[in-house]
């Protein structure tokens, strides 16, 4: 149990906090979500002991699928040790007493916010996303009554117009994260605010993907081996962000990088956003161009004087 697990030490709660009736309700919603890939299933989201917008949807989904033999990995921004990942991991350590890990390949359930691990996931894993706004059409049409109709009629003209206006104005689509996808040739879906760099990973992924939006009370899913296409145009095909340098610490290429500012004189370095992936590579002996730089040592996971 980690230290933040103590926060939840207020009394005896059911395994994984949720009562069994709530789990059943969420489990039924998950099954519907799997049967209708990309469709947002309404569910009676519960009030959780963490704020709405801080992962209550993902937490409810994870709590409903988790068993005592599961091994949970909790990441935020690709990293296991960001504050909210630490807090949510502590919640499950306390309420479910399950094993947790930083290692992607060891986990059976991975809950994430904003990233998909770099390492390919397997059929034996479930990836749970925390979703703030599940409705891909919400910023084009704020009314649920209207967007529901659009999904029913498969009327996604509004979305295409928006993307096309981007192209007309900027020469390319100006959406960099939460980039809309079409699932199984039917539903347009918000892949949660992961950078579009991660979109190709959700196409034909071997692991089951579950998406939970607590405040908006929606659950949706993408089964393994499902066609997921990022929306684009024939003359403007979807393309992902490319970094022109490798990870400064482990030298990895074609991975998503965080830009870390080293000083106030323009010094910066780029390092893997997926901290477990980066550490594993370094343990295997890979070294990036800045691995030996004293400024980089703190970032590389060496002991850091922690501050509040």
């Amino acid at each position, binding site marked *: 149990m980690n*230290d*933040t697990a*103590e926060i939840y030490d207020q009394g005896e*709660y059911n395994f994984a906090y949720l*009562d069994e009736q709530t789990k059943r309700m969420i489990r039924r919603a998950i099954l519907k979500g799997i049967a209708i890939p990309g469709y947002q299933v*309404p*569910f*009676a*989201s*519960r*009030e*959780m002991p963490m*704020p*709405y*917008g*801080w992962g*209550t949807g993902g937490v409810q989904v994870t709590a409903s699928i988790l068993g005592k033999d599961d091994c949970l990995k909790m990441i*935020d*921004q*690709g*990293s296991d*040790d*960001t*504050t*909210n990942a*630490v*807090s949510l991991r502590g919640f499950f350590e306390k309420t479910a007493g399950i094993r947790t890990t930083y290692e992607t390949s060891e986990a059976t359930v991975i809950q994430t*916010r*904003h*990233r998909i691990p770099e390492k390919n996931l397997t059929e034996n894993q479930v990836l749970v996303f925390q979703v*703030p706004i599940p409705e891909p059409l919400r910023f084009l049409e704020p*009314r*649920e*009554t209207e967007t529901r109709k659009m999904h029913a009629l498969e009327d996604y003209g509004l979305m295409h117009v928006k993307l096309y206006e981007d192209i007309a104005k*900027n*020469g390319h689509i*100006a959406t*960099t*994260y*939460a980039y809309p996808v079409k699932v199984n040739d039917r539903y347009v879906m918000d892949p949660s*605010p*992961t*950078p*579009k*760099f991660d979109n190709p990973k959700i196409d034909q992924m071997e692991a089951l993907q579950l998406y939970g939006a607590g*405040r908006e*009370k929606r659950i949706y899913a993408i089964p393994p081996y499902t066609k997921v296409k990022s929306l684009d145009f024939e003359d403007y095909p979807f393309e992902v*962000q490319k970094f022109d340098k490798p990870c400064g610490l482990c030298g990895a290429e074609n991975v*998503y*990088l*965080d*830009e*870390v*500012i080293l000083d106030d004189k323009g010094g910066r370095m780029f390092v893997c956003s997926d901290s477990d992936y980066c550490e594993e590579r370094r343990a295997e002996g890979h070294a990036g161009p800045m691995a030996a730089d004293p400024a980089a040592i*703190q970032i590389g996971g060496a002991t*850091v*004087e*922690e*501050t*509040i």
Partner: protein
Amino acid sequence: MYVAVKGGEKAIRNAHKLLAKRRRGDTSVPSLTLEQIAQQLSHSVARVMGEGSLYDETLAALAIKQSRGDLIEAAFLMRAYRTTLPRFGYSQPVDTAKMLVERRVSATYKDLPGGQVLGPTFDYSHRLLDFTLAAEEDNTGQSVETVQADDDAMPRVTDLLGDEGLMEPDPVTGEDTPVGDLTREPLSFPADRDLRLQNLARGDEGFLLALAYSTQRGYGRTHPFAGEIRYGEVEIEFFAEELGFAVTLGSIKVTECQMVNQFQGSAKAAPTFTRGYGLVFGQVERKAMSMAMVDRSMRWQELGEEQVAPAQDIEFVLSHSDNIQATGFVEHLKLPHYVDFQAELDLVRRMRDEWFEKRRQEENGDAAQEAAE
């Protein structure tokens, strides 16, 4: 060195220790007791019970103490506790006509059966800071003369109007009509009035106040009169299947507001007064009145009125009234977003490069043209 988001467990633990210390403040000052909060900050307690959707004065007092007086945070603590409680069923509707009234005012009649009972109120007080309260031992035990209200003789104003046919009747719901409950079923639109009222009762006081105010300033006028505001104690009854009759579980204090609104009639319905309804835990009159006005505003469709204003927009109002949801989502912006920001950084840099490149080409083009001329 930027370590805020890679702070890890120790940082979180220390932050919460520091919070506990700051919450307690100067230890030479006595710690607040829950009784003190429940007794002396009763309006805060009532608000926390209402927006926290759980009637328990002691727990509300604890939540207020724990949250350092942040009432939305306190209501959140109540909500999170509430969801863990077993649910035995739904109580019988409370009968506010049988209320043990402590305060009752009507703006629509000079006098009425049962009379006007001012009761405890800030109304008509002069808002001057009372420096005698600053004394350690404030002025206690002052004897107050009160009139014991005879509750049999205190009919609700809307019932009086109803006797004359001037007030729309209370909606009749069958015994078997299921009780809508947005904590058990996700809200879908259009939402019926039972769910709307539940949502408003849990809604943020400030949000409802602002919406109600907007209707007074022309954004969806509903011509309200404060038909009646009453505050007092009502009994909560629960129908016990195994006994075959309702048993009293206890009593709660509520404020009820019935706004009386003009309705000009339609082809189907004669002109009459209509009502907006507000009911909240404790003495929170501002919220009860606001709730009644917003409730009435959202009835535009049923009464054949036009939708012209935000307070009438059911989906807008119900989707944004809950301050636990609102505060969570607004404050989630404090969480690290650097992955998405990185994607945006990249795009903005690229777009700037393209913009300058285009400018440069245009200038070169101009220069070339000038040279050619």
